[in-house]
């Protein structure tokens, strides 16, 4: 497998292949999701890719009716809210993502500690300029 650089674009490319890829520091072994080029723990800059299982636990969340433009363009709004949260993956790191398969009409029923697995969604890009914003890209999500 060709080694991709430790960039956000590479992380996105792996998402289109439905893979959740993290970077592991070859110096101290720390694991980073999203991947980083420089290790926060030991500051070394030699990383290797590691595919994660995609299993994790919900540690914090919210349900939003007034979202940013990419979510509005994806059809979300006051009458169709969505859940977004912080997930701790079983390998250790945490990441923010949309949470699918939860009762967004009753946020009080959504529980921290819920087991989730990686899923992949396609939405527009984050940008103020419409031509740029309409470019579709893959996002990591998790499903309860």
């Amino acid at each position, binding site marked *: 497998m060709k080694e991709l650089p430790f960039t956000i674009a590479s992380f996105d490319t792996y998402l289109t292949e439905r893979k959740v890829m993290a970077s592991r520091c070859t110096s101290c072994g720390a694991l980073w999701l999203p991947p980083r080029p420089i290790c926060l723990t030991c500051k070394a800059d030699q990383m290797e890719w590691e595919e994660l299982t995609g299993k994790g636990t919900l540690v*914090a*969340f*919210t349900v939003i009716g007034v*979202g*940013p433009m990419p979510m509005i363009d994806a059809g979300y709004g006051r009458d169709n809210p969505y859940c977004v949260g912080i997930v701790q993956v079983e390998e250790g790191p945490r990441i*923010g993502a949309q949470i699918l398969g939860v009762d967004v009409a009753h946020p009080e029923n959504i529980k921290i500690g819920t087991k989730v697995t990686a899923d992949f969604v396609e939405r527009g890009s984050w940008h103020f300029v419409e031509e740029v914003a309409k470019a579709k890209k893959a996002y990591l999500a998790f499903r309860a």
Partner: protein
Amino acid sequence: MAQGKRRLGRGVAIVGAGMSAFGTRPDITNRELFAEAFTDMKDSVDKGFEHQDIEALYVGNCGAEMWESQSVMGNLCADIIGLTPRPARKIEDACASSSVAVRDGLIAIASGLYDMVLVGGTEKMTSLPINWTTMALACGSDTTFEGSVGFTFPGLYAAMATAHMEAYGTTHDDLLRVAIKNHSNGALNPKAHFPMTIKQVMEMRAAKAEEKGGPVPTWSDEMEFLNDPRFNPVIAWPNTLFDCCPITDGAACLLLVAEEIAREFTDVPIYIIGTGQASGHNLHDRDTLTSIPAAKLAAEQAYEMAGVDPGDIKMAEVHDCFTIAEVMAIADLGFFKEGKEAAVAAGEGKTARDGQKPINVSGGLKCKGHPVGATGAAQMVEIFQQMRGEAGERQVTATDIDIALNHNIGAHGTTAVVQIYERR
């Protein structure tokens, strides 16, 4: 290399402080808001000052590029107040922009480079539809891994609120009591965006419902009103409308001078005796979601430099962009224990204007308003007035405020500034 004790090269004092009226100001631009704050500041300098003695300008501004399609806010603010050709710069650090601007001006004087600088901030936020303002604010998140996956600012703090509720049993009613407290303070602030108590808001809504001929709601008290989703809808669960600060236009500024010349301008200068600033990770890379680590670090630096501890602080203006933010702030600053003790402090009256630790006597961001690039400087305007006994109806009288503190968070804790002030 471990960082040793940090000291300012020389002392710095605030000798003037002013702000524009906060609110929805459709008829006025960022720079004009700043000019309004400057005029107000000028009137506050007891013995006056020579305009040409201002040597530099540091202006906080978060998003004029988005809200006004205008960059270079430093130069524009210098120009409108007649400060050109003095060096001017804009500082952007999200909601902490103006605290960072003040700190940079302070450091410039402490370094010996200047004797007098003007510092502050301005923000015009009401010019975009709410969808785009939500987007503009979310640009202060990590847009790659937070904003674009769906987090908004109310949402980021809501996530912290769910973690706090899970860890400590904090309730939404605990949070709403922060809003009730801050509105009761802000009702006495003529510059506040919404100078009304929650009870007054409630009565206004009931009167409006009656006017429209619909059924008139009968709430027994403010809590019942705030728990009525028809009048206090969810923005980002569990954050409701009244957990969130408003979208506000406003500006604030301060005149800083070297300590040795401070009494040329006033007999009551307010000295900045401690300053701290730290950066923080995005939410997902933090060890905790129930406090703001950068705020704790900034507070440690400020306390250490000032040589005081949390018990010495007589009042504080803290960053209550959302109700949960004040709960975390008063713990991060060491005033209350993290968890339920901090969560119920407002409800128990401990942080009231006449309580043991008055917090946000200005009304806070929640009631006074949060023009993001001006907020830190506006906190300092309140501190300047309170420490000099000039805060009118909302003056803290239970204690003599000789030491005070402000706490200003950039974004969701990726920047934090804490400063400590003394009246001698």
